[in-house]
């Protein structure tokens, strides 16, 4: 990395001869410093964020007083009085009431990595670290015989595979059969008997699947010998990191990262995935772009192409530019006052009076958040588009006019197509700004937890009034509102990295689009 910086400095100095003084080095140093900071940021986020998905080795630790516990060593610190302490992630919050443990290094007698130490991901209480002792059958289990201890791990794995398949089938059944039927039933006044029958059959099938999932329970034992029984269906995943090779670990790491990206949050956001937040962020940004681009472009076209270039136009232009400098929270307040309470409240009285007093649009939601951010990014689009329009040489306009085009025809056939890349640049800048904003959103619709996506199969598919999750707010939430900071912190990093990635991807998409358009302008078929 330093290597890159020095090479860059050398590149920049290529043009500078002897006697140029120190300024090329100064400038190169500035660039190097910026680069260094960007790289450091990414390395920190990636290291801390992605590292936590790595199935690290588990240790069985014996202390000098004979007590034993199991956990994942996280880090070592030096206390002020010269002792060294280890932090272990011990999980098992349901047994210990805490998931972390500080241990003085001097008190540790032995550290082993037994292969049969298991880490379980559970739906409640967070992970478990310990041993799997038995799988207890239930009455309606297809496997009647009791599981032997030695084969418990093997059986658990088979059960997990089966449970995953069952869950998937259940989800498919819900989405493709139950939901449409329910909708049909709700719509029709007198439901056809065939539909009713099909609905009942589907429901029965779903009940059977749920039954198949439940019933069995798992007997676990912690490192210090305490036993515990949990329902098997609450176990999502289990692995024995000490028994895994690097390749297997890598595979598992990929699975866990994917789960983080594609699943909803669990356990008060400190566990599970962030899919609703990704979806909410992207959807809100797209909606915002759809609103801000046409308005910004129209405003820029008016300011640059139509308005008389007098003092008033200059004043408006200055005002627009200054609008970009208004703190974003102010836009949040504006959005809350005007959109949510003003327009939203009125809309509710006119259109959704049946639901009052519970508000429909009179509370924060996707639409108001998008509009607020659109307002926030409007100056960016206007300025960028105006710059683009100013870069189109006058002789292009005159060329069209001289062929007998009206001013409107000149605008639509020559000027706007040429300004398209600039408009997209404006949109890119708007997206970059909007995707990172959190403060105004807290006032106009972002919530801590909204597992239901604002876009689904139910009419009208896009629920503009629904509250949504946002990656930026999620970061804030994990970092400051969570009770268990040690387990939330890696998620903060991971989510922050994801936020950066989402912004980069959104920008790259827009840049690719712009490049494509530019290329079309330059050389059409070559």
């Amino acid at each position: 990395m330093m290597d890159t910086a020095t090479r860059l400095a050398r590149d920049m100095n290529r043009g500078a001869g002897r006697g140029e003084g120190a300024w090329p080095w100064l400038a190169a140093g500035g660039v190097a410093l910026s680069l260094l900071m960007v790289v450091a940021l990414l390395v920190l986020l990636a290291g801390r964020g992605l590292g936590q998905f790595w199935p690290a080795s588990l240790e069985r630790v014996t202390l000098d007083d004979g007590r034993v516990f199991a956990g994942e060593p996280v880090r070592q610190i030096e206390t002020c009085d010269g002792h060294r302490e280890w932090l272990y992630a011990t999980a098992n919050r349901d047994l210990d009431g805490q998931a972390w443990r500080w241990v003085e290094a001097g008190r540790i007698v032995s550290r082993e990595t037994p292969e049969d130490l298991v880490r379980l991901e559970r739906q409640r209480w967070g992970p478990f670290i310990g041993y799997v002792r038995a799988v207890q059958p239930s009455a309606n289990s297809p496997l009647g015989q009791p599981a032997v201890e030695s084969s418990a791990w093997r059986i658990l794995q088979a059960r997990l595979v089966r449970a995953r398949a069952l869950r998937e089938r259940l989800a498919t059944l819900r989405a493709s059969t139950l939901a449409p039927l329910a909708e049909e039933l709700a719509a029709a006044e007198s439901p056809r008997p065939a539909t009713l029958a099909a609905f009942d059959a589907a429901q029965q099938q779903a009940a059977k699947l749920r039954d198949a999932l439940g019933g069995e329970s798992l007997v676990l034992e912690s490192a210090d010998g305490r036993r515990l029984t949990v329902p098997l269906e609450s176990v999502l995943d289990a692995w024995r990191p000490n028994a895994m090779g690097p390749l297997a670990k890598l595979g598992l790491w990929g699975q866990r990262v994917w789960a983080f990206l594609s699943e909803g949050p669990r356990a008060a956001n400190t566990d599970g995935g962030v899919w609703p937040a990704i979806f909410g962020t992207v959807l809100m940004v797209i909606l915002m772009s759809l609103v801000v681009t046409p308005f910004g472009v129209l405003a820029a076209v008016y300011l640059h192409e139509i308005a008389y270039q007098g003092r008033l136009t200059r004043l408006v232009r200055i005002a627009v530019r200054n609008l970009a400098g208004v703190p974003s929270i102010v836009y949040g307040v504006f959005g809350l006052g005007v959109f949510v309470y003003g327009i939203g409240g009125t809309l509710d009285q006119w259109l959704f009076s049946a639901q009052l007093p519970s508000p429909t649009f009179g509370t924060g939601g996707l639409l108001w958040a998008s509009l607020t951010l659109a307002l926030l990014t409007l100056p960016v689009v206007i300025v960028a588009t105006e710059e683009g329009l100013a870069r189109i040489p006058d002789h292009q306009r005159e060329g069209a006019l001289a062929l007998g085009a009206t001013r409107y025809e000149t605008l639509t056939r020559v000027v706007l197509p040429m300004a398209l890349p600039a408009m997209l640049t404006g949109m890119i800048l708007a997206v970059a700004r909007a995707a990172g904003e959190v403060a105004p959103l807290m006032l106009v619709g972002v919530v801590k937890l909204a597992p239901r996506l604002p876009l689904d199969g139910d009419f009208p598919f896009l629920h503009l009034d629904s509250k949504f999750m946002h990656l930026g707010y999620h970061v804030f939430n994990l970092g400051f509102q969570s009770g268990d900071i040690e387990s939330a912190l890696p998620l903060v990093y991971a989510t922050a990295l994801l936020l950066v990635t989402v912004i980069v991807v959104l920008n790259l998409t827009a840049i690719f689009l712009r490049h494509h358009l530019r290329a079309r302008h330059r050389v059409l078929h070559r």
Partner: protein
Amino acid sequence: MSVIHSPSAAPSPIVDFADAASCFVIDDLTLDYAGKPALSGLTLRIPRQRVTAFIGPSGCGKSTLLRALNRLHDLNDEAGRQGRIRLEGTDIHGDEVDVAELRRRVGMVFQAPNPFPMSVYDNVAFGLRLQGIKRKRVLDEAVESALASAALWDEVKDRLHGSAWALSGGQQQRLVIARTLAVQPEVLLLDEPASALDPISTLKIEELIRGLKSRLTLVLVTHNMQQAARVSDYTAFLQAGELVEYAATDRLFTNPRLTRTENYITGRMS
């Protein structure tokens, strides 16, 4: 028997044409930008189917005059005008005149080649499509004949759908001329059409200008006096917003009547 000097007997330095032979008749035209005069009290006639060149130092008002002929001058918010311009007898500022139609009749080619960022074909078809012509056969024929008139067809017939911006500067300028010719103008205004081109491309443009004379009236603004001398039939010399001398090109460049003209065309300090 000595020669008597009699200035009162000197002929007017402004050549005149009959109404019937004139394309543009300009009467006492004064143009200004934001109150600053660009052209004052100009009266001249531009003969039909001839090449008329306007020469003069930068800022003499020759380009402004050219842009007044198709009312591009009016586009500027600060532009003002007094006096009258008649095209084929009709006042171009009259209430019943459609500006877009006027500009179709009076085509214009600019200093820098300004093809639109589209294909060669679309550039030439641009003006026709503005008129609502959509049938492919009609467009194809018009595009081919316009490109042929601009002596460009052979060079671009295999890349009609390639970008116009991939052509060389000289080809681009001829494309712009073709684009203008496609809408069948009566007059072609050329504002330093070759000043951005290399000598060979310049000669091709000049050849084209001479060839077009039989079909339309051409008005050429140029800094290049040799170019005016090569291609024009009549030359008007403007200085500081005034018409100084307007004569047949042959006469103006061998024996100008006025010292100001002489000084300008021979490169003397005045």
